[in-house]
């Protein structure tokens, strides 16, 4: 049998295949995990899904901070000294095998008593015996089977999370009451149709009060519990002098309840309890539908979600100690291990620093630093351990300072009037004036009917269908976009998106793709032999530029070099027989530093003769020019980049002439730029990706984060767009505009129902049964209209 992929993780095994137990593995790590599973009779793991695993990482010392009892206490959900419960976030959870293996942890270690996976949230809740297994050991155990938990500063500050389930309770109660009230009101409806002689059926006459009071009893919790939010919101609206949609709803609910109660007390009729409970039920259903949440995404992340909790401090006598990140003080000496995040601004003292700032800038190319250089918070160390001296505490570091800006404290949703509330202002005024005019009329004609008519108008005008249009339209659009990998935070984002007139893009990582760079060669052509030596030389180097260059060169036989040397921060050299090759920076190959080009370049010399250079250009996402050309007709476009102007020429060639290009923008500059445009009346859409865009994303009307892997990383924003769908952005904006049109149409539709209802109400003939038919009919037809229309509109998306 021929194997090409690792039995455990599915990676290609051609480089270093390890055969064990008749299966091939890509590395020792994967083999070890398989050994653990087979020793514990857990190989069923591989049956559920093919190659489900991940290679365990080397975490020597990384979790030492879990020995600190103060940190442990903050992470635990429950602790009585003996039994401890902890919920850990594990990004690797992705298939049914993951659920199975994590829920069978007790077979690997008997001290684990229960482990429950929440697949949507990608976390596992583990109950274990702390005397036999410490939290640190548990984390190491999870890592050893390829499920490394992700513990960030976020876990530390939020503590135990409270889950809000009140909407489900409210919906459940309203639905329960609605069903029962409907049953109880049926006898009287049948009576209405069967008997036209005026003599009521005897038994019904006798039990009428019982049925009516039961309906009353069912309605009480609906009015006082389920519809609570409508009263609160209406009250808040009135206090800030805004007639929002909840004002007529609250008015309708209270009039329905009060009038119905009086009717049954004075035995005038059966009341409108069925309409009342139905109304609240449908309204809450709309709210529930709109509340589509993506549990696997987070729109609220700030730097805390990425920063570690604990860090190793080196005390003057050379011993190491784990301390909390918040306890770091200026002047402390810290040890940053391989793959660890630098939490504060600091100066490199010892070791080789190769820093990945992709969290911060979106730039995936790593930066080499030498001792004495300043390192900024947010970078990830990639080459072994380094020692650093702290310059600033966590909150005062260059990156984290951004979060002290006021933008992060204002809630965007609240500062914005939705289309529904906009229209309801007029609606409420019109309804109230109709009510008062007709009441005045009836007072003159037949005063006994006046109160009846007044309340009927308020009941029938209760904008149920109105209030349902937006939630159902937006809820459905949210789902359609979600399927196309465009994830919105909430429904109001759709409305905001439709109003955009300015679009601002970040450069690195947003319009450029992270993974591939374009490399161009300038200079004397290399001979085949030289190219072969070059490729063999590059093979030995781990530097990211060498790796990218190695990948683009044509296949050659691998030559065994006679000598190979790496000069840190300068370049590499290789010797094969008589030929000598040098690859690296300009001074390294014996040329003056070239200041004309700002792009990264690698210079080559062969046998001390300069040959040429490879220049690295950013590779732009596919469909970029096309997207910009579509957008330029309708929007002002701008690009704000934190980088230098090296790409300016390239960009002007690619993009429409009108596009503004700004370089060397600091995070605060981006924020201020957007603020300035907003003060001039622009509605700004910001598209960004790194933590350095966080301020701009928060300040803009809509902030979209582009993400190559939606499960891993994105700063706080209003929407997350999968990078592969970047070229569809214009279609998404168009769909949001269509959805507003759909809402306007359904407003028109519900207005027709209101007019019909008002006819009955104004003429004083609104019977409970008419309300009970009209109300659900209008709601259901609105819901089906919006669902149908949005699905048709959504079909146009690719």
């Amino acid at each position, binding site marked *: *049998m021929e194997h090409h992929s690792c039995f455990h993780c599915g990676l290609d095994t051609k480089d270093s295949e390890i055969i064990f137990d008749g*299966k091939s593995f890509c590395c020792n790590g994967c083999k070890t995990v398989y050994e653990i599973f*087979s020793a514990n*009779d857990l*190989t*069923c793991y*591989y*049956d*559920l899904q*093919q190659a489900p695993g991940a290679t365990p990482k080397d975490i020597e010392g990384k979790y030492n901070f879990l020995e600190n009892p103060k940190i442990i206490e903050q992470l635990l959900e429950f602790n009585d000294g003996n039994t401890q419960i902890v919920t850990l976030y594990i990004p690797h959870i992705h298939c*049914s095998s993951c*659920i*199975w293996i994590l*829920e069978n942890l007790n077979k690997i270690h008997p001290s684990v008593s229960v482990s*429950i*996976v*929440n*697949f*949507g*949230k990608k976390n596992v809740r583990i109950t274990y015996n702390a005397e036999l297994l410490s939290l640190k050991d548990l984390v190491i155990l999870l890592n050893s089977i390829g499920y490394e938990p992700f513990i960030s500063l976020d876990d530390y500050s939020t503590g135990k999370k409270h*889950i809000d*389930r009140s909407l*489900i*309770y409210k919906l*459940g*109660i309203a639905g*329960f009451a609605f*069903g*029962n009230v409907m*049953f109880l009101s049926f006898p009287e409806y049948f009576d209405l149709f069967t008997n036209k002689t005026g003599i009521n059926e005897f*038994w019904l006459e*006798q*039990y009428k009060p*019982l049925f009516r009071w*039961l309906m009353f009893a069912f309605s009480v919790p609906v009015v006082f519990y389920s519809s609570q939010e409508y009263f609160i919101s209406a009250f808040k609206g009135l206090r800030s002098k805004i007639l929002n949609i909840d004002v007529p709803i609250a008015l309708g609910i209270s009039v329905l309840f009060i009038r119905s109660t009086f009717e049954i007390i004075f035995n005038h009729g059966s009341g409108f309890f069925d309409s009342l409970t139905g109304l609240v039920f449908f309204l809450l259903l709309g709210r529930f539908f709109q509340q589509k949440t993506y549990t696997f995404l987070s729109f609220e992340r700030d730097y805390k979600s990425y920063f570690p909790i604990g860090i190793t401090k080196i005390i003057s006598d050379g011993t190491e100690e784990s301390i909390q990140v918040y306890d770091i003080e200026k002047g402390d000496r810290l040890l940053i291990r391989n793959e660890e995040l630098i939490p504060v601004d600091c100066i490199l003292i010892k070791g080789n620093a190769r820093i990945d700032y992709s969290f911060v800038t979106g730039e995936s190319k790593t930066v080499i630093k030498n001792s004495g250089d300043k390192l900024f918070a947010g970078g990830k160390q990639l080459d072994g351990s380094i020692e650093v001296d702290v310059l600033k505490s966590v909150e005062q570091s260059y990156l984290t300072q951004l979060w002290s800006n006021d933008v992060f404290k204002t809630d965007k949703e609240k500062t914005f009037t939705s289309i529904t509330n906009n229209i309801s202002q007029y609606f409420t005024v019109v309804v109230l004036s109709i009510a008062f005019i007709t009441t005045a009329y009836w007072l003159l004609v037949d005063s006994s009917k006046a109160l009846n008519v007044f309340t009927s108008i308020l009941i029938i005008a209760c904008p149920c269908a109105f209030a349902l249009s937006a939630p159902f339209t937006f809820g459905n659009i949210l789902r359609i976009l979600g399927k196309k990998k465009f994830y919105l935070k909430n429904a109001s984002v759709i409305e905001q998106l439709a109003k955009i007139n300015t679009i601002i893009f970040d450069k690195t990582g947003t319009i450029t793709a992270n993974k591939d760079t374009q490399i161009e060669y300038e200079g004397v052509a290399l001979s085949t032999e030289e190219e072969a030596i070059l490729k063999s030389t590059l093979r030995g180097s781990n530097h990211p530029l060498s790796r990218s260059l190695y990948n683009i060169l044509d296949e050659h036989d691998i030559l065994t070099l006679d000598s190979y040397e790496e000069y840190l921060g300068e370049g590499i050299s290789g010797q094969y027989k008589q030929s000598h090759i040098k690859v690296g920076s300009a001074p390294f190959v014996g040329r003056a530093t070239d200041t004309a080009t700002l792009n990264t370049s690698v210079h080559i010399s062969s046998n001390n003769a300069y040959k040429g250079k490879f220049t690295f250009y950013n590779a732009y996402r596919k469909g970029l020019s096309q997207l910009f050309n579509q957008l330029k007709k309708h929007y002002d476009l701008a690009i704000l980049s934190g980088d230098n102007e090296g790409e300016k020429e390239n960009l002007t060639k690619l993009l429409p002439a009108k596009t503004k290009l700004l370089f060397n923008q600091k995070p605060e500059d981006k924020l201020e730029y957007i603020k300035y445009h907003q003060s001039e009346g622009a509605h700004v859409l910001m598209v960004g990706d790194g933590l350095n865009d966080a301020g701009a994303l928060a300040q803009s009307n809509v902030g979209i984060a582009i993400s190559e892997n939606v499960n891993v990383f994105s700063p706080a924003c209003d929407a997350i767009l999968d990078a592969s769908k970047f070229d569809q952005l214009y279609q998404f904006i168009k769909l949001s505009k269509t959805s507003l049109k759909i809402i306007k149409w359904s407003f028109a539709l519900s207005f027709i129902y209101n007019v019909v209802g008002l006819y009955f109400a104004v003429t004083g003939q609104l019977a409970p049964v008419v309300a009970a038919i009209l109300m659900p009919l209008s709601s259901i037809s609105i819901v089906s209209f919006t669902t149908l229309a949005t699905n048709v509109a959504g079909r146009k998306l690719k």
Partner: protein
Amino acid sequence: MSVIYILLTISIIVAVIFFIAFILAVKNGQYDDSYTPSVRMLFEDELVKEKPNKSIQTKQD
């Protein structure tokens, strides 16, 4: 005729029992995660029939 009282009482009691069951289910977090249980449910059968070595062989073919 007063049988209606008994019927109403019974029907309401039944309704309330289901209602309480619903509230308890929400309270116990059954509505928090609507995906994992659907997967977990299928595992029990796998465990009963578990024959690790044989099943791995079939997977590889």
